């Protein structure tokens, strides 16, 4: 059924993509989004709601929805699932203590029917921090290899240096485009 939903989704009028950026608090979601858009990242406060960025990227219009990740806000994430083309899951690769929390929250999202058609990009963020787990280690802890019915990709990145951000977003946009716009 997931596949049928995807195939039916032909947005001919406008190549508009909705990307949902989620992850535990302090994972670096807002910093990633801001850095990607050339903004100052010196003072970033915890997000107590959402930050949306609407931008043109290649020939697409991207709507990036970065939603706050604090425990009290996670129950509201489901209000943003509808029509999501891609899920960007941001991991603090240096926060080993909460990796199982991180895995549990991601698993909850992956069984959501309204996210069934979304590609998954995992950003193994904070690679600039000494002692951060490698993307291979994150992949293993999160059990990503068990995901078979969805396109996914893990990218190492550093929101602070900007490294890896463009590569990740490029993968996501290309993956969604190959699924959705195949009738063009």
């Amino acid at each position, binding site marked *: 059924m997931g596949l049928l939903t995807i195939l039916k989704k032909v947005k001919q009028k406008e190549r508009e993509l909705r990307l949902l950026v989620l992850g535990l608090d302090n994972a670096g979601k807002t910093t990633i989004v801001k850095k990607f858009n*050339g*903004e*100052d990242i010196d003072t970033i406060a915890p997000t107590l*709601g*959402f*930050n*949306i960025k609407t931008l043109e990227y290649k020939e697409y219009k991207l709507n990036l929805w970065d939603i*706050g990740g604090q425990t009290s806000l996670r129950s509201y994430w489901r*209000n*943003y699932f509808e029509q999501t083309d891609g899920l960007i899951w941001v991991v603090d690769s240096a926060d080993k203590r909460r990796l199982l929390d991180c895995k549990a929250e991601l698993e909850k999202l992956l069984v959501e029917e309204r996210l069934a058609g979304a590609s998954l990009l995992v950003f193994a963020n904070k690679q600039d921090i000494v002692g951060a787990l490698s993307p291979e280690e994150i992949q293993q802890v999160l059990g990503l290899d068990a995901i078979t019915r969805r396109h996914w990709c893990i990218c190492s990145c550093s929101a602070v240096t900007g490294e890896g951000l463009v590569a990740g977003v490029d993968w996501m946009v290309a993956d969604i485009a190959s699924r959705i716009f195949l009738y063009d």
Partner: protein
Amino acid sequence: MPAEDSRFTAADVLRFTAPTEGYLCPLSANRYGIRFNSFKVRDVDSNAALFEVRAPPASDDEQIIVDDLTPEQEVQIRSIRYQFPSTVLSLKRIGTTLEFSIGPEPLNTFRMIERHYFREMLIRSYDFDFGFCIPNSTNTWEAIYDIPTLDPAIQRDMVANPYMAKSDSFYFVNDELVMHNKAEYSYFDEAAAT
């Protein structure tokens, strides 16, 4: 204004071709504690701030003040005049960031429609659906876009005629108009400024 007259929908305002006379809903229509905290315009390519305005922190007696305004004070609250250097008109990409807060009640659908006019002609229209807003949240939306290149003659006309560029901003909760603000824009030549 009687309640039945104030029921403008999104479909209604999307048909407007000129700035409205007055405001299409009273200030009291904002029953949701929606508050605009800041508005910022930046040049995306250089990340230089072109304009930034920040509201003073919310005070407890704000609501009381709203109920007791003279028409002149109301206009002052609901309209803003922007002054931009004329170089803004020839920038390639700008980002406009709006920060707003929501009261204790969740909003199921929150939508903004903004109509921009010059000399009573529609030049641009924005329509963005925020969807759900978390109770007591503070949210931001940045729209980054390529500015459509305006004809140089129109650009000169805009510089020569301050505040002839106007906009109406309409905000809807569940398709009910809850806020309506106005703005006017002037563009000044930096070289000519003293």
